[in-house]
């Protein structure tokens, strides 16, 4: 295979003596969905937060498209076309959809003022594509339903032409219909050549959506397998026992 889109090599981070992520390596290719599985506290979210710039790793390297990357802040991460949809959605509840979509990257007029009309028009366009039922453009996002809030968070990632997308529990707060919409979107983005890291607890969902799954336990990488090579039971035993049955057999 050609150069991976993202390569995290021997990454470690500790919080006050606790090795949240311990010497983990993982790679992601263009047009691929890689799932991260594991118990709560296994280190999945911590691992991707180093990629999205929320945490600074203690040791290890990140390579983006074959080049060594330095990611010290969310802004750095964005400059490598990495977009993250956080479990908490990271929305400012008091602002409207357009302000949230462009937060930190506002469109401005030639005089340097924020151009609310243009941002609202752009938001309308992208929302028409992602969630045609989305109408509440003027309201603070606090007034939106879980699914609508999710689509604002997704729109933020999609609008800025991400190459690498990180989705932390994207369907946790959603209903059946909205979950299907997210799955469809993941398929579409994959076709466009994006690389996607997906975090979820739902093993079955992961088997459907991902090309490969990586299982973590206690901050260590248990193993990475192609979904067609393993059964759901294999994955479950990796999560619970922390051992890769394929590797030992």
């Amino acid at each position, binding site marked *: 295979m050609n150069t991976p889109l993202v390569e995290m090599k021997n990454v470690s981070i500790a919080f006050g003596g606790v090795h949240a992520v311990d010497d983990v390596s993982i790679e992601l290719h263009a047009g691929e969905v890689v799932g991260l599985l594991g118990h709560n506290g296994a280190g999945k979210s911590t691992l991707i937060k180093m990629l999205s710039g929320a945490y600074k790793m203690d040791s290890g390297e990140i390579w983006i498209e074959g080049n060594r990357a330095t990611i010290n802040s*969310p802004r750095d991460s964005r400059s490598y076309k990495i977009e993250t949809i956080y479990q*908490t959605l990271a929305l400012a509840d008091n602002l409207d959809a357009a302000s*949230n979509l462009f937060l930190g990257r506002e469109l401005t007029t030639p005089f340097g003022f924020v151009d609310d009309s243009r941002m*609202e028009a752009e938001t309308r366009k992208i929302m028409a594509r992602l969630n045609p039922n989305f109408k509440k453009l003027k309201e603070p996002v606090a007034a939106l339903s879980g699914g609508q809030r999710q689509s604002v968070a997704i729109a933020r990632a999609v609008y800025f032409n991400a190459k690498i997308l990180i989705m932390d529990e994207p369907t946790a707060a959603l209903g059946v219909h909205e979950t299907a919409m997210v799955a469809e979107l993941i398929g579409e983005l994959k076709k466009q050549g994006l690389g996607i890291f997906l975090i979820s607890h739902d093993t079955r969902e992961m088997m459907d959506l991902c090309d490969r799954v990586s299982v973590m336990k206690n901050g260590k990488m248990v193993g990475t397998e192609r979904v067609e090579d393993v059964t759901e039971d294999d994955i479950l035993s990796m999560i619970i026992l922390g051992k890769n049955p394929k590797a030992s057999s």
Partner: protein
Amino acid sequence: MSDNSTTGSPHNAPQKRSFLQSLEVDLRLLGMIGAFFGICIIFNILTDGRFLTPRNIFNLTIQTVSVAIMATGMVFVIVTRHIDLSVGALLATCTAVMGMLQTAWLPQVFGLELGHPLIPWITILAGLITGALIGAAQGWLIGYQAIPAFIVTLGGLLIWRNVGWHMTDGATIGPLDKTFILFGGINGTLGVFWSWIVGISATGAALLAMWSGRNAKVKHGFPVKPVWAEITMMAVISTIILGFVATLNAYAVPERVVARNPSLYGCETAEGCVVAYGIPYSVLVLIAVAIVMTVIALRTRLGRYIFATGGNPDAAELSGINTRLLTVKIFAMVGVLSALAGVVASARLGYHTNDLGTLDELRVIAAAVIGGTALSGGIGTIYGAIIGALIMQSLQSGMAMVGVDAPYQNIVVGAVLVLAVWIDIQYRKRVGAKS
């Protein structure tokens, strides 16, 4: 009427809208203005019509300016979930610096003689820089060192009040420069002609802004107000601006004041010389501050980040906003505004005194909160804070005019503060439940 609300946006089905909805007036703003007028009318009745005279409205206006200037900055502080208890003390340190500069340091150390035309401007600039530096230092402690704002500014309250005292050896400094005191209020006004010019230009600018705002909406195909609603709003705003100017212009300079120096008012002799005050310079300063702060809040990235940080600090951080530097900027802004308020306050007295601005921090916070700024963060408006300051001041001077004893005045003001916040919470609950 072929308004664009139906043609411009197909997804916005035409629906019956109430009168107020069509006007797109903020209900909370309407409530505050209603409360303000209610207070004015009650006091006017209780004082047999002495409250709503041009003279009293003029005084009320210039008494409000200092607190209102600081309150606009306090909005940003409270919106980002901080608090600033040091504004009154900071004001005193800045006026001490400005007082000492113009009466002692500049004349004695730099050899500028008293009354030199540069003195007031150097002084004001130095005062603003002092405020900015102290504010930025406090912001750094809060943003970068993560000391709670309450503690940093509580310390600041004790420190800066007494740094000012130390600089002046506790003495009252003055009289202040002749040009400097023009910013105090009654000592410096525009006069009738220029007041009308300012009033008419302001009206023109407001109408132009509303019209171009409407056009921008039409261009993007957004729904707009019906034309009649637009015209009603324009009429209301023009009436308010021009009515305010007319009121200030109706306050004639007392004859004995004219008699002291008729030439100052463009008359040969005091005989038959009728002149009015018009808009005080200090009010122009407040208006300029209000406009700049509103533009920052609504039209700049800085303002957007302030509100985003207040709404969700983590989201702001993850969106790449440097929230720590933002904190420094906000507190530096409050510092500058405290210094500016200090210019107005000391110029109004004509002296720097050590108790200048005492308890102002509480008045400023109360003004911002009465004006609808939520202590939980993320919500607040500049105009609200200014109306809040006006409400506080009119309550206080109204009660003084009626003859309520000072302790009772404070009891009422305290009760009003709590009541205002309670009403605001109830209002938000209702609105939140509906949407």
